[in-house]
């Protein structure tokens, strides 16, 4: 398994932690120890790579590259949405520079190389270009409900 994720920096004061959670994506607020969760799921040989400098560069690039198109992009969205996103990006970038947030790549292996849930209805994992809607997918829209198998 491998995934990139954004986490609070370790050792933050309560005040700094609140700021990190406010500045980061919603899931940053979860009190998750990814190493512990991976081990609990049977993974071992866990490797963590800090990619925070690249995170800062990418966050800054989104902000800088988007700004010249601000007027055109804002017209494509509901009033205020674009401006809010840019403001959120500035807050995120400031939090990264302040050392409040990190982005990491976690790589982990399991001896049995097991993936997939237990106790759920089974479906073939054989690739198919057909779009399949899992019967247990939450109903988000009428489209999903109407396309259920």
């Amino acid at each position: 398994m491998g995934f990139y994720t954004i986490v609070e920096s370790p050792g933050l004061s309560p005040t700094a932690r609140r700021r990190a959670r406010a500045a980061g994506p919603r899931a940053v607020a979860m009190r998750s120890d990814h190493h512990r969760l991976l081990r609990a799921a049977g993974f071992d040989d866990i490797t963590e790579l800090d990619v925070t400098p690249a995170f800062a560069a990418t966050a800054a690039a989104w902000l800088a590259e988007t700004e010249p198109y601000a007027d055109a992009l804002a017209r494509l969205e509901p009033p205020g949405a674009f401006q809010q996103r840019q403001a959120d990006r500035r807050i995120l970038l400031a939090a990264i520079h302040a050392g409040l947030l990190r982005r990491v790549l976690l790589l982990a292996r399991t001896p049995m190389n097991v993936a997939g849930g237990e106790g759920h209805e089974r479906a073939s994992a054989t690739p198919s270009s057909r779009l399949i809607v899992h019967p247990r997918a939450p109903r988000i829209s009428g489209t999903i409900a109407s396309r259920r198998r």
Partner: protein
Amino acid sequence: MTVRDELQARALFQERYGNRPSPAACQIEQRVIGGDWGANGYTTMAQADTLARGLGLSAGDRLLDLGTGRGWPGLYLAARTGCRVLLTDLPLEGLRVAADRAAAEGLAARTGVVASAASGLPFRAGSFDAVIHTDVLC
């Protein structure tokens, strides 16, 4: 994250994936992450390559991409490494874009698309050689 947060996030992405990215948005994405996947996260092409190397992905491997959106980075990794990929997410709008792209890029035979919550995956244990998600648990 609360159930309300999840529902809000799903609705947001459903709406977003239903709209084709503007030419300006495509140019911006190309400059920021190096691709044109309609993504707005922080995983660059270089980082997707790092992920593939870290997992040792190669031709024939079975890859599961959770929260794939419009197919990034699972489809890219399938094209890059020759692996087979199964793309999952909840918004159908994004998955349809991903399925169309797989067909357009000649990857349909190695690509599966399943609308499913990551918390209730409909696959047998041992179905995949590798599982990825990027900017999902972030």
